[in-house]
């Protein structure tokens, strides 16, 4: 399931819900990304998505993860709108029969979300704002999955 939402979320609640009532899943891995304050430089982040398109692009990546890692289920929640430092921006949980698949699929999905997912992110500081683009490290991270 892929969910874009303006409202803050509690990652613990999402993880508990995702784990509930599973009989054949041996492994659930999860990742929560928090907004950094950057030593007070960032007062807030503002994330923009293209409703429908953004979910569709993430769904395509999820399908890749399903076939590549044998992922059984996944839950992706991404905030949009204004996000204060310390708040969770993204939550990814992956479910698989065994842990390696769950860990790897979670790692893969996060690398995709950080570098290629259709979001536009504005950092709002005391002296104005700037549009953020992926860091070099984000490109290196996603490239890891492109070589066999």
């Amino acid at each position, binding site marked *: 399931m892929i969910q874009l939402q303006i409202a803050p979320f509690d990652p613990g609640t999402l993880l508990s819900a995702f784990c509930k009532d599973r009989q054949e899943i041996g492994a659930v891995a999860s990742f929560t*990304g928090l907004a950094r304050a950057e030593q007070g430089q960032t007062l807030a982040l503002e*994330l*923009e998505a*293209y409703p*429908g*398109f953004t979910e*569709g692009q993430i769904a395509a990546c999820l399908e890749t993860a399903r076939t590549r890692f044998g992922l059984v289920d996944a839950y992706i929640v*991404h905030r949009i709108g204004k996000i204060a430092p310390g708040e969770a*921006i*993204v939550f990814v949980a992956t479910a698989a029969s065994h842990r390696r698949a769950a860990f790897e699929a979670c790692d893969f999905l996060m690398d995709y*979300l*950080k*570098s*290629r*997912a*259709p*979001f*536009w*992110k*504005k950092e709002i500081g005391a002296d104005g704002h700037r*549009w*953020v*683009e*992926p860091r070099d490290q*984000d490109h290196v991270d996603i490239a890891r999955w492109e070589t066999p």
Partner: protein
Amino acid sequence: MARVLLFGRLGDIAGWRDQVIEADTLTKLLGRLIEADPGLGEALKAPGVQVALDQVLVRGDRPLTASSEVAYLPPMSGG
């Protein structure tokens, strides 16, 4: 005619994010946008700007209808 959506910095440069514009192809639409706002035109021609027609990424020219939705997507930030 098409509904035109601008995302990220493009919306800031144009001062609007959603507008209906008269044009029957993508090329004519781009021409119209450049003519109306050269600053936006420069930004639309910058490397890394992608075009989605009815939520599908496209390259080159395409015909537009009254129900077409054209989105100009600057380089994505990731989440």
